[in-house]
């Protein structure tokens, strides 16, 4: 406060609000342009360094870039894949597995979470085994799931499901437990019957937390799917990445990695956008 008063004497009151980091000569647009060119420059330097260490076959004792594909090789592998009919199959299979695994995880995670979060008896009976299973990484389930499911497709979907279900479940429980009991009491006083409470109060009140769980679950979904595809299957982005290694199409490894990142990012963005559309009350300008 006193700083604002002091600088207003110097006639610089409006810019004083931007904090102590401001420099007197810079305008907002100039700072934005500078930030943008800095970003561009750092990416360029990164790509150039990558190209340099790979074309020089640089070896630094414990790590070697002798076999790492260069950006140019990666670009060529990408063009190859884009022209290959296999692209649609790889992406299609991966998307399908994620969609099915995630959908099942959503239904199971939310349903279980609502019951466990709301009823003490459910917490006592259902939560202990779930707590035992939760710390086991989904990827370590791969051998067992191959034994459990006759089709590799089902086993991969199972792994994907496992990856997503725990974040969804835990965030749903957390959301339900956080519901203001006064909201429940008010709803009851306004004539809401017990079985209506879930639809009318519990679910919408827990929705922001559930949405967080879905976004996290979508991320772990991809992580688990890619691992599963590397071990079994003939199609999928994870399979393509691993196959690129085995057939020495090293550029394809990077393409696969980038595709996985892109698809993961895209599906998480889709979850967030859907959640935003379904929860207009949480948007900016409707802040609590």
């Amino acid at each position, binding site marked *: 406060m006193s700083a604002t008063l002091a600088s207003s004497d110097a006639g610089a009151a409006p810019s004083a609000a931007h904090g102590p980091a401001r420099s007197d000569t810079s305008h907002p647009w100039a700072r934005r342009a500078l930030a943008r060119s800095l970003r561009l420059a750092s990416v360029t330097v990164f790509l150039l360094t990558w190209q340099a260490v790979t074309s020089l076959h640089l070896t630094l004792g414990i790590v070697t870039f002798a076999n790492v594909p260069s950006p140019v090789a990666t670009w060529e592998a990408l063009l190859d894949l884009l022209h290959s009919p296999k692209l649609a199959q790889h992406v299609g299979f991966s998307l399908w597995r994620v969609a099915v695994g995630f959908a099942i995880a959503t239904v199971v995670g939310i349903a279980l979470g609502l019951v466990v979060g709301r009823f003490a008896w459910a917490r006592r009976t259902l939560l202990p085994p779930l707590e035992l299973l939760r710390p086991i990484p989904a990827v370590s389930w791969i051998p067992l799931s191959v034994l459990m499911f006759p089709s590799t497709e089902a086993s991969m979907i199972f792994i994907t499901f496992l990856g997503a279900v725990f974040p969804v479940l835990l965030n749903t429980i957390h959301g339900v437990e956080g519901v203001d009991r006064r909201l429940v009491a008010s709803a009851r006083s306004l004539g809401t019957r017990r079985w209506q409470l879930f639809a009318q109060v519990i679910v919408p009140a827990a929705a922001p937390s559930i949405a967080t769980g879905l976004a996290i679950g979508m991320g772990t979904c991809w992580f688990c799917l890619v691992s599963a595809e590397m071990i079994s299957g003939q199609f999928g982005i994870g399979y393509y990445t691993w196959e690129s290694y085995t057939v020495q199409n090293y550029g394809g490894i990077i393409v696969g990695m980038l595709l996985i990142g892109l698809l993961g990012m895209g599906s998480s963005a889709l979850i967030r956008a859907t959640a935003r559309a379904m929860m207009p*009350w949480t948007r900016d300008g409707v802040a609590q």
Partner: protein
Amino acid sequence: MIAPPTGRVDIAHVHIEVGAGVDRFEALHDVSLSIAPGEFVCLLGPSGCGKSTLLGALAGHLAPSGGEVRVDGAIVDGPHPDRGLVFQQHTLFPWQTVIDNVAFGLKMQGVARAQRRVQAHELLASVGLQGFESRYPSQLSGGMQQRVEIARVLINRPRVLLMDEPFGALDALARARMQQLLLEVWSRVRTTVVFVTHDIDEALFLADRLLVMSARPGRIIEDRRLDFARPRDESLVTSSEFAALKRHCLRLLHRGEADAPLPRMTPLGPPIATL
């Protein structure tokens, strides 16, 4: 307008214990009283004296450990839209717009959307909130939120309106405006009102009948009719009669004061969730 025949409250030898385990204590000790249909009753008492607990029992959120609560002869054994409850902090659903919040009670009754919106619209207008239908609760001021809360309860045409320090969180100006508005609405609706407050001015300004409660365990230590003419306005607060009554109430409250201030109770039990 003729006072409706509904909204009679009978509380007979009610004891209420709240809290869990070792924290359990008797919040109300042998309270008996009757409230006539359409009466505006203020429950005045120090923080933690059990007045909100009594309100919780009337709402059906707290079960008495002894005695019984009846409204129009029927025993209260759970919450019901006939007994509308307004909390100190609004409990509007943040995910619903103002109009949907107000119409919620009708939705629970199965009234069609168009029809319930018409009624909600009218009620919103009667509390001075026309034009705010499509806002979300978080976009309103504290006073407006409480007006929506009151409208939401009134849409069920409750026999009894239960209010737990509804204006306690508002600034002085907003509070005065809300008190005026409440009396205005009540003059049209004429439901029984049980209004809990620890603000002597508020109780004297609003009530037909003042009930003063002692500190824990809560008992009623004064039951007095307030015959100030209606409609009432701010000039009442500065009248000599009002000042004399206020002095009297202050003495009563001081006499019943506990050694240390007690935590505020809620109509749902102790302030921290003890599930």
